[in-house]
């Protein structure tokens, strides 16, 4: 895929110096964006690693909670189970702050519980409920901080993946299109200018010859 195109400009010194300036800022921009991309990528890979591990842990814990729940559902009546969970004592709210990673703004979640007492996760008396329900609720409560962190990391990964893709496109556009185009056009103008210069020199020499010949009869 090679498509170096000369830009449509007049071959003048003015354009030449303009293009040279553009080329140098394109090169500088390319370097900066490349650094940005590399740093984003480095941080992204760290996050992905954590994300992977955390997701595996969360999925394992949730599967366990689900197993408890399935058992609870089989020994208790569905309605009793639902009623037991209907009026939670606990309440969760999220406080959100911002983190800036290489100009990507990433939300940071901080879970706030209404009550600090960990036994408040049980919204029911134990008389009519199965012990497996307790197990399920406990397992969920244990894994919940990890789930919040997971939500945070997955969002961060998605946002960073977007930014990396954008940055990569910009780097590629500069590297493969804009910079080669500028270089090609600069080369063309330089050649055109020196060609003009040569032709001017030649005609000057010719004129000089003619003038000398006329006035002094020189050869």
């Amino acid at each position, binding site marked *: 895929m090679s498509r170096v195109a000369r830009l449509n400009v007049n071959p003048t010194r003015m354009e030449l110096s303009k293009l040279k300036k553009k080329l140098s800022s394109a090169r500088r921009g390319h370097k900066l964006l490349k650094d940005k991309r590399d740093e984003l*990528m480095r941080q992204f890979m760290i996050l992905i690693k954590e994300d992977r591990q955390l997701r595996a842990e969360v999925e394992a814990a949730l599967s366990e909670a689900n197993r408890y729940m399935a058992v609870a559902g089989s020994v208790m009546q569905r309605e009793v189970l639902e009623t037991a*969970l209907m009026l*939670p004592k606990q309440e969760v709210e999220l406080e959100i702050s911002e983190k800036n990673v290489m100009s990507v703004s990433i939300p940071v979640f901080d879970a706030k519980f*209404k009550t600090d007492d960990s036994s408040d996760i049980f919204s029911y008396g134990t008389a009519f409920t199965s012990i497996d329900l307790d197990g399920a609720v406990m397992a969920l409560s244990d894994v919940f901080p990890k789930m*919040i962190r997971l939500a945070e990391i997955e969002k961060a990964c*998605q946002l960073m993946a977007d930014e990396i893709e954008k940055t990569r496109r910009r780097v590629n556009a500069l590297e493969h299109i804009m910079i080669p185009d500028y270089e090609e056009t600069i080369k063309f103008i330089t050649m055109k200018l020196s060609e003009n210069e040569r032709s001017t020199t030649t005609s000057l020499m010719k004129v000089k010859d003619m003038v000398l010949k006329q006035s002094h009869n020189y050869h």
Partner: protein
Amino acid sequence: MSEMYKVAVIGDTASVSGFAALGLSVFRETEPDKIKKLISRLAASDFAVIYITEPAAAMVKDTINKYRSSRLPSIVLIPAVEGNTGDGMRALHEAVEKAVGSDILN
């Protein structure tokens, strides 16, 4: 800015009921159209995190993808009671593929 945000869980009754005890907003929904509307509604209000079971998420993939690049909400796939389908992990691989250009995990 100290506005408080909420956490939602969407999925079939058996998979999501337990979360109610933690004080999350639980939505027992299994129909694609209703889930789509629900996600849009939650995203527009003050829900920052939406956990959705993998089978429910599989039905509304487009809607979920729509929120991938927006700052909030964070939509996270969790396994349902029937077991882990691996969709959650797959989403992670997709993010890597988007960023790197190819899936470099495994």
